[in-house]
């Protein structure tokens, strides 16, 4: 497919956001307040404690703030664009995804890529400000930064497939609101957004190891703050890559099954 066409599809969401200044202002304010609140909370919790669960105050604050910034990567108002799978299923317009000269899976992937790049711009800007203000610690070395970047990329890739799988559910159940909420909950809890997984009991950490969520955020952030040493980065990255492959194959299969469910108006 020609690059210009891919670019046009990918930029739909960012352009939509750039043309709605109130939403961008709200996102900016929300992100700033959330970072301040989260940093304040962890500073307050560590006020009378040195190291807890092997994490120092600086590690915990850095982890928590980076988790907030990373959540911006996929935190767009998806419904505002009126282009979610559930909306198309509801209004019967999903059939048009199958009538274009661009396959639904390719279109979905390009839109998601645009969204995540737009979110990345927000996260990077926030990271630069937090780093300059001393809210977060810089990575331990250039090698740590590189491994973190790779791990974050793999994590976002996994998250894309997880979100896709939930959207694909619409083809079979017509509704996915509850599934989406459960996914967001599972993602926040099991990837360490609420609190770093290192604070949870051992059985919980073991359980989360069998699920893809911890690979989306907990692994890259643990690499960044040094809770996973560079010597152990290889196996962690391999597990992430394995999840990418497994979920890619699974969602590819579901796309095929989903296509059989779509009927145009009139049958």
């Amino acid at each position: 497919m020609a690059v210009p066409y891919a670019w046009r599809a990918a930029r739909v969401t960012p352009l939509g956001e750039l043309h709605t200044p109130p939403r961008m202002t709200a996102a900016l304010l929300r992100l700033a307040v959330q970072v301040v609140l989260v940093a304040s909370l962890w500073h307050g919790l560590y006020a009378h404690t040195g190291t807890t669960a092997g994490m120092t105050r600086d590690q915990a604050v850095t982890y928590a703030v980076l988790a907030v910034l990373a959540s911006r990567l996929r935190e767009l108002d998806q419904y505002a664009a009126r282009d979610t799978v559930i909306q198309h299923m509801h209004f019967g317009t999903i059939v048009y995804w199958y009538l274009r000269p661009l396959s639904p899976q390719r279109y979905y992937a390009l839109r998601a890529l645009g969204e995540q790049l737009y979110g990345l711009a927000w996260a990077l800007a926030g990271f630069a400000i937090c780093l300059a203000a001393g809210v977060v610690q810089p990575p331990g070395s250039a090698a740590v930064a590189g491994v973190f970047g790779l791990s974050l990329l793999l994590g976002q890739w996994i998250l894309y497939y997880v979100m896709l799988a939930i959207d694909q559910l619409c083809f079979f159940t017509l509704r996915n609101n509850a599934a989406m909420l459960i996914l967001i909950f599972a993602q926040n809890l099991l990837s360490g957004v609420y609190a770093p997984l290192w604070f949870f009991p051992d059985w919980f950490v073991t359980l989360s190891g069998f699920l893809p969520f911890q690979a989306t955020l907990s692994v890259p952030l643990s690499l960044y703050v040094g809770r996973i040493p560079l010597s152990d980065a290889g196996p962690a990255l391999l597990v992430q890559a394995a999840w990418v492959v497994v979920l890619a194959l699974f969602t590819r299969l579901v796309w095929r099954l989903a296509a059989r469910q779509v009927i145009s108006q009139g049958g």
Partner: protein
Amino acid sequence: MPLKAVRLAWRITRLNFRAQLEYRSEFLMMIAIGAVWQVSVIVFATVLLTRFSGMGGWDSSDVLLIPATRMLAHGLFVLFLGRMHGIGYFIQEGKIDVCLVRPMPVHLQVQLRMFPTNAIGDLTVAVALMVGALSRSHLDWTAGRTSYLIVAVLGGMLLEAALFTAVASAALRFPAADYWGRWLEELLGTFGSYPLNVLPKAVGGLLTYGLPLAFVAYFPAAVLTGHGHDTGVPYWLAAASPLLGLLAYAGSRLLWRWSLGHYTGVNG
């Protein structure tokens, strides 16, 4: 509300409940999501309480009373007054215009537009947490203290309803205001469940006077557990939290009525 209106509201609610049952798996998952969403708050609070000895000078049994009060207030809000949350799309799609021409108050129509299945899960977990918090509590639960707790839960429900009604009023003019509702829900869930004195004073002040989140559960729990003088606000103000909820809700309903009077819709 006249008896006829109550009967009508009950009939609509029954129909809405049956409509929710149309999609069985979605119905069951909505109950589950209400429950797991609240469990996440418990997990977070438990992890913090386990890893950090005492929060802001409160012992764990006292701290538990905060999420229990907030969750119960939230569950009741979702069940009775929660449809104001997420009304942006309802307005954006012009559905509110239909309500304007029906012989029933628009606010009531909005509240009756669907049955909140997730409230079943919310309330189940909230009641369980409240029972757990009360059984672990070392306080003497006199009639006065129990009555204050009940009033505090109702006040918390009204205060949360007031905040979402204010956002809904703004959404009548700017449908994108719905975005603020989702943020509000996140803030209430994240920062409404533990002692705010663990935060720096400026941040605690923001969550007290900027966004009155502290009045939902933190202040009432502080008054009940004897921490009422250490909250950073006058004791009488902390103790008056339930009354503030009532006043805020009355004010938000006035704001809703005024906003509805100025609603122009897509056709002016």
